[in-house]
């Protein structure tokens, strides 16, 4: 599982630029599925044919990133954000462009307090000395992502882009296992989740599944002085009750709970106010598609150093395997 995750997190793929991730996934699963194709939004849709229910499993390929808006005459880059990038967390980070170029995010040191360190007071230094030199390496509109190579330590994985390559890894592993079922399984690797749950919408519209599950990350409440009530790392995958984009269909949530209990898989419930998932756009598509979610407890979401517990990841795959067989 760690190797699968590593290959996926190492692929460059901010929202709208997911093609490299799609290539990695395609190589991983193309021999194990009946059909695999991309749609106009860049979603990668792999099908394992069956005569039973059409079940869509969705994990998003895109990661958050930065987009170059202007280049100054000293060769420093100003940027906007792609998805929910927290300004303070960006500071001091290395970022990487699609062509491999590395930059460093820093701030205008004239600001009075770090509270004022908004995105418009920050810049990326790529070591260029002039605008012309910079423009040989990047253009306005180019995107960069955080650097943060994957590390396995003490049963945990630390990396950038675990949101949501960990979900992609679970789907890829599941597809490779070829679970025996009559149901028709759609492994859907979606695009543009971080900018409005966009890819999943068109994929669901095209597929018209009977039901759908989004596999994504959820924040934990187990770090010093964090908000109480949230899930903990290592206590099992979280079965979604609600997030800010969807209330899980009660029958799907119950079915997931039954599958977990029947198979002795630990689980937690996810009830959060903030953040959405692909289920949010899927469930209101084409007259309504009953949807739910399985979420991987994740610390430090949307940073260059997200953390998941490998047991939770493996248990999520087991839970989904049991679910798609019913």
């Amino acid at each position, binding site marked *: 599982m760690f190797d699968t995750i590593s290959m996926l997190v190492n692929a460059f793929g901010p929202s709208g630029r997911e093609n490299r991730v799609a290539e990695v996934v395609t190589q991983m699963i193309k021999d194990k599925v009946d059909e695999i194709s991309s749609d106009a939004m860049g979603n990668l849709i792999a099908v394992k044919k069956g005569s039973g229910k059409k079940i869509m499993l969705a994990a998003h390929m895109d990661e958050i990133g930065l987009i170059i808006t202007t280049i100054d005459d000293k060769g420093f880059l100003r940027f906007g954000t792609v998805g929910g990038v927290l300004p303070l967390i960006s500071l001091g980070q290395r970022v990487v462009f699609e062509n491999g170029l590395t930059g460093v995010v820093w701030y205008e040191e004239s600001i009075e307090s770090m509270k004022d360190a908004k995105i418009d007071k920050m810049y990326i230094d790529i070591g260029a000395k002039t605008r012309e030199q910079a423009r040989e390496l990047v253009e306005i509109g180019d995107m960069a992502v955080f650097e943060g190579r994957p590390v396995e330590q003490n049963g945990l994985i630390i990396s950038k882009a675990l949101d949501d390559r960990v979900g992609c890894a679970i789907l890829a592993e599941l597809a490779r296992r070829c679970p025996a079922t009559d149901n028709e399984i759609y492994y859907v690797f979606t695009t543009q989740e971080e900018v409005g749950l966009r890819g999943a919408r068109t994929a669901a519209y095209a597929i018209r599944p009977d039901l759908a599950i989004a596999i994504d990350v959820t924040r934990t409440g187990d770090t010093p002085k964090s*908000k*109480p*009530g*949230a899930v903990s790392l290592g206590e099992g995958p979280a079965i979604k*009750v*609600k997030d800010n*984009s969807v*209330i*899980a*269909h*009660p*029958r799907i*949530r119950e079915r997931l709970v039954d599958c977990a209990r029947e198979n002795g898989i630990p689980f*937690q*419930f996810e*009830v959060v*106010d903030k953040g959405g998932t692909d289920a*949010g756009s899927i*469930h*209101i598509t*084409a*007259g*309504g598609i*009953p949807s739910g979610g399985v979420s991987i407890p994740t610390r430090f979401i949307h940073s260059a150093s997200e953390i998941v517990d490998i047991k939770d990841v493996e248990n999520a795959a087991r839970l989904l395997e049991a679910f798609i067989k019913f």
Partner: protein
Amino acid sequence: MECRDLLKKLCSINAVIGREDAAAQAISGILSDYCDEVRVDAFYNVIGLRKGQGENPRNVLVSAHYDQIGLIVTGIDENGFLRFTNMGGVDPKTLAAMEVTVHGRRDLHGVIGSKPPHLIPPEDSDKPVKLEDMLIDIGYGAEQARELVSVGDVVSFRFPVLELKNNRMAGRSMDNRSSVAALVEMLKELERIRHRDNVYAVATVQEESGLVGAFMTSWNLKPDLAIAIDVCHGDMPDAPSDESFPLGKGVAIAVGPILSRKHTRACIKLARQEKIPYQIDAEEKDTGTEAAVYSSALEGIPTLLLSIPAKYMHTAVEMVSLDDIGAAARLAARYIAFRDELDQEGDSND
């Protein structure tokens, strides 16, 4: 059933957003008395159909959402107290010392605790209490609480329906059961008049969190005309006069960019002709109601929005007037039946 009793019955039903499954049968039972057929879809939208009696009937959708705001359990602490967050727009100020029902393994009474004033240090006495600091007390210790309640269980407010003077009723979930009452009253009215068109009377789900039911309903029914019924702010002290409407002065007919100009005009004309009390509700934005979904669903559905003024919205003491419910019902029914007979002059530019 009289409107008064109907509303009481509707308000006694629990359908916290996303858990309408617990209530769909009850709603379906109420609609079935006045419909040719009633079905419940996969998301628990309750869809009643009264068939039209004319030739080439068109399809009219009239919807009122039946979900209600509430709370959801997010944790159980070591002493058996329940942490929670809101389902829909709940003002934390209105929660202290509230009675609730926790819909756990079985329904449990509970109270939202509030620190007595004696124990609040003076420097904190003016500070608002935050939702995340409030707890529900169900009287059990942690072990029993964990047996009966799980994270994700929903919580509803307990407040009996009060009958007040002047045909006014107060209670929780008047948003939007008063509109469901109007939907049923409209069906009753339609029994007395001949109507050409098929009328889909739909009690929709999850309006309070993303207008969810409206997406399904418009897609599945593909109506030629949609009428959304919801509540608008009742006039109360300190309320801005352009955004609030006195109770008992009639149904509010919304006028605005997303609403069909042709149908809105005709509807106002009919209200005047039939002497149905009405008020005009100017909505400069998308209205925040199901009308927003309908008007841009499919190829675009001509949409009307009728509202019942409700004071103290999103509290447990929402107040409405039965007279306004009656006016909304009469206007909707008569518009559906008589809209073709109205003089449509000056509508060419719609």
